[in-house]
């Protein structure tokens, strides 16, 4: 199951030449992986313990004395699949299959077809291997591999300035998050000498010499590393900046695959993150809550539809992360899995939304919602897919929240706000596209806007169906119990109604607003977007002018000084050499007399009684 995508990549890299055969190879690999994942999931229904196997990768003896844990260093490939992992595998494989199928038809104009599909196989391999990893270094290795493939996918469009700028951010920011994750793992290892998660958790509090500060540092580093890839605001910049520059499938997979992988890893690492103290967890909950509100709120600033959908999905991811962390903060760890369920439900819908909105933006030749419209008539199927994906994104969090959060609490109130904002954001884009006129512009004829190939239209719908099924399932305690193997009580109907109602209120508000005055709403968003853009540009310019440029200039000047300095030293050495040569040729006795006289004068002048 783990090796199949890698095999697909190897075959694609070594023997495949055409776009079609590369697509077929990637699809075959994804389908076989999906089938094997189904087999594993079926096997798990027949047993109560996870599947696990271990292979040694690296084993270095470094000392013969000292603490046993530090006498050797090893990285084992520990593959462990429980029910939650198997469901996550199926979800991400569905997203990959849908993406490949869509790209086969809609991505014909993208450059480097064979390269693209090969990288998708690498991403699938890395993501699958990360999900089944239980050794921290192994987890990071596959995480990094998937990250490298993601970067290459997001910077796929060579020759474009925008893609180049987006690609830089796609490399640097996630790399910084990945280093944060590695640093957190390094801090843990430096204190415990253990990398197997199952062996590490029991000794977190029983190992002498480990202080709270170190644990807090490790927790924060791990959290930042994981949530950076999860796309929590403000760490979602690498997703929003590449939403328009990367191929649509690359952006869709970056959002969906990484949200699934990151939330499952966050859930898996929570016993470690929760180890230091409750105050740390509280801060992490606050951070997640702020992200859950800020992301969809900022999506209302500006009219770029793809960015808006990315931020809506980011809001749902933040809700999921907040639920996971809050469960540990409130010592109700059995509810942590609802956060995972929420993100799993949203992932296919996010992918579908990205594909649909990209198709619409390409057909309407604009990235501005104010210039879009009449989608329900000109592109009814794709618009419907976008609308449904928006609804699924909106409702994906409701079920999970209803199971885990008390509505009367401050946390519940914050999440309610987040759900409301997510629903507004997620519905705003499809409604703006669906209704209102599609105006004629220079070199653009609205009558030429039409749907894509028929075969490609169904794939966003299939993804939406998968997301909807997971979202509906998350309302049922039996599903949550299946994921974590524990029993959960049913939620009263009024609790469910409250959270669904919050989401529906957002939908209704959006429908009313855009239904009555779409242009006014979009003008307001545009104005807010311009203001935000100016603020961000000003901040970036200030950072560049007062911090980045001076530091880089100092380094450059030091380099030049060193070059000049040793050049001067060389000239001084050459001059002293010439002087020595001249002195060797000069007559010795007169020279000695002159030097003695000069020395006598100097000593005489400096002696007390003359000038002093």
């Amino acid at each position, binding site marked *: 199951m783990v090796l199949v995508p890698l095999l697909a990549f190897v075959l694609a890299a070594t023997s495949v030449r055409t776009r079609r055969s590369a697509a077929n190879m990637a699809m075959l690999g994804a389908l076989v992986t999906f089938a094997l994942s189904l087999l594993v999931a079926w096997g798990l229904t027949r047993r109560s313990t996870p599947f696990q196997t271990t292979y040694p990768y*690296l084993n*270095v*003896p470094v000392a013969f004395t000292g603490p046993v844990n530090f006498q050797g260093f090893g990285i084992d490939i520990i593959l462990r699949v429980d029910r939650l992992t198997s469901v996550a595998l199926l979800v991400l494989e569905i997203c990959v299959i849908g993406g490949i199928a869509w790209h086969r038809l809609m991505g014909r104009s993208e450059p480097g077809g064979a390269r693209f599909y090969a990288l998708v196989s690498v991403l699938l391999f890395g993501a699958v291997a990360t999900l089944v990893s239980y050794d921290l270094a192994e987890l990071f290795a596959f995480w990094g591999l998937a990250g490298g493939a993601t970067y290459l996918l997001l910077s796929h469009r060579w020759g474009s300035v925008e893609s180049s700028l987006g690609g*830089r951010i796609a490399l640097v920011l996630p790399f910084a998050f990945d280093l944060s994750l590695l640093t957190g793992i*390094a801090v843990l290892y*430096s204190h415990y000498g253990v990398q197997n998660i199952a062996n590490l958790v029991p000794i977190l509090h029983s190992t*002498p010499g480990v202080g709270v500060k170190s644990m807090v540092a490790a927790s924060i580093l791990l959290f930042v590393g994981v949530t950076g890839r999860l796309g929590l605001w403000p760490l979602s910049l690498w997703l929003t900046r590449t939403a328009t520059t990367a191929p649509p499938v690359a952006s869709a997979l970056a959002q969906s695959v990484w949200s699934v992988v990151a939330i499952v890893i966050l859930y898996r690492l929570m016993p470690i993150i929760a180890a230091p103290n409750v105050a740390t967890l509280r801060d992490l909950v606050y951070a997640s809550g702020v992200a859950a509100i800020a992301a969809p709120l900022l999506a209302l600033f500006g009219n770029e539809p793809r960015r808006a959908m990315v931020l809506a999905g980011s809001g749902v991811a933040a809700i999921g992360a907040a639920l996971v962390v809050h469960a540990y903060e409130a010592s109700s760890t059995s509810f942590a899995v609802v956060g995972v369920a929420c993100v799993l439900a949203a992932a296919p819908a996010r992918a579908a939304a990205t594909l649909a909105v990209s198709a619409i933006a390409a057909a309407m030749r604009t990235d501005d919602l104010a210039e879009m419209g009449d989608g329900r008539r000109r592109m009814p199927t794709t618009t419907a897919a976008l609308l449904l994906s928006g609804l699924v994104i909106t409702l994906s969090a409701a079920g999970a929240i209803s199971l885990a959060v008390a509505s009367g609490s401050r946390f519940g109130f914050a999440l309610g706000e987040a759900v409301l904002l997510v629903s507004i954001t997620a519905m705003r884009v499809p409604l703006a596209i669906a209704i209102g006129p599609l105006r004629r512009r220079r070199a653009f004829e609205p009558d030429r806007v039409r749907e894509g190939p028929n075969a490609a239209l169904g794939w966003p719908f299939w993804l939406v169906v998968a997301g909807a099924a997971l979202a509906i399932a998350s309302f049922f305690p039996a599903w949550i119990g299946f994921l974590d193997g524990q029993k959960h009580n049913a939620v009263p109907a009024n609790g469910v109604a409250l959270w669904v109602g919050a989401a529906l209120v957002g939908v209704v508000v959006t429908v009313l607003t855009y239904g009555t005055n779409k242009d006014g709403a979009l003008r307001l968003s545009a104005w807010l977007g311009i203001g935000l853009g100016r603020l961000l540009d000003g901040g970036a310019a200030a950072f560049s002018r007062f911090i980045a440029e001076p530091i880089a200039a100092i380094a450059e000047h030091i380099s030049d000084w060193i070059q000049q300095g040793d050049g001067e030293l060389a000239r001084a050495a050459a001059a002293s050499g010439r002087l020595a040569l001249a002195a060797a040729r000069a007559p010795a006795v007169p020279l000695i007399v002159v030097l003695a006289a000069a020395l006598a004068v100097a000593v005489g002048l400096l002696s007390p009684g003359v000038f002093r």
Partner: protein
Amino acid sequence: MILAGIALASPTPAAVPGAGIFTSPLILSLSIWVPVAVAIGMNFIPNPRGRYDTLMKQIAFFTNLGIVFILFIAYNQFQTFLPGMQFEEKLPWLPSIGATYHLGVDGAGMTMMVLSGIIGITAVLASWGVRERVRSYFCLLLLTQAAVNGAIAAHDMFVLVLFWGAAIIPAALLTLGWGGPRREAATWRLVAYWGLGTAALLIATMTAYAASGGGSFDMDVLLKATLTPRVQLAVGVALIIAAATRLPLFPLHGWVRDVYSDAPLGVSVVIAGSASRLGAFLLLRALVASNADASRLLAPLIAILAALTIGYAALVALRSVDLRSAAAHLAMVPGAITAFGFAALTPLSIAGSVLSLFTGGLAAALIVATAWTLSDRAQTRSLQLLSGLAPRMPILTWVFVIAALGLLGVPLMASFPAETMILFGSFKTQPVGAFAIVAGLVLTAVALAVLVHRVLFGEPNHDAPAVSDASLGETWYLGVMAGALLWVGLFPGGPKLPGTEQPIFDPGLVNVMSAGLSDIASPYVPPNPAATQ
């Protein structure tokens, strides 16, 4: 000596990969003196008007191939469980001053020898395009490789200083005779900085020699002698200066920009790949392994230098307008990480640094060679002209990306386990330095992102000169280095059949490099927490 080595060769008794071929008590001497003998012999081959230039190149190539073969045998026969030196050779040389011809390698030394072998053959392939005074060029290249091998294998400080200094002369002559427009400045900087390092090493050696009673230069005696703390400190500082000029570390890095930019490609590969690693190897052999007190005192200094180096290199690369200059500065990053591992002084970080000697040498050589080749193929080094080359140079694009990922220590690259071990081993003893190194790696990622996206993935510049992709020969030497990085990254412990423990045909670099590590790291083992309570 060669005849003796061949005459004494015998079939390998043990059942190891490479068994049944041969073993010899003079393996290390063969790797040093065969290139010297071939270089001298080549001078007697008449080559009127360059008629036999190809023959000269072939002689150099097959000499290096032979060295690689010998080293491969030695690598496979290396006993990973023995703590001491292996393949030892000891002959009295200057008994009046206590100098002996003493060679030997432990795990770290064997790792360096393997690196030197790979770099040697890569350098010859990279030099295939040399057209002028070919015989002289390859003679000097072989002498440079021999000096590097000698410095690695030397187990006598007097011999080490000789080989250390001997590497300067052929490298300088190669740079001066076959370099680019700024070859004179490059040569003088190389001689000045490396000469300073050699002087510092000589001072350290003579100080330790005098303080220990002047009996012997042998490392087993000299480096284990009891010295006063002040002498230990002085020797340690001199060794750090020597290492910093060679690795290099900020601020003794002044030769890097000119040499990597204007030296011939093969010379740049040798210097970046193996000759510069001698700096870190010296730190390991002469400071960390022998002088625990001085190591602990000077560890913060090394950590500071390493952190400054990585930050400085990334920032200057970011501002550079010359591709080769940017690559030259980025090539300093692996050396800084290696040095930092020695500064952390934990068994794990030391092990990581030993592995990083190999991976860092390959990564540095690869980035320098790729930048050199790319600028040569694009007919310009200016980053203002180079843009959007990926569609027209797919091979070089892939190699450049692999080089960038190798510098960053991305998983699947050999530098990943090395950097992981260094970081994992350093957070307890040097937390601030470790964070600084991580920050430096982020800056390096920024610099690489800007470089890669400007040169490869940006909008094509139609005013730039015409470009062409790497030729078959160029692909070979770049592929050897990239392949070695990937191979060790995928199979650090050697490829094993599923279900078995014994590696097949490659004993695994981490298994070989760990021989003798426990002894080196024993003074730095953290106390057992139960024992202190």
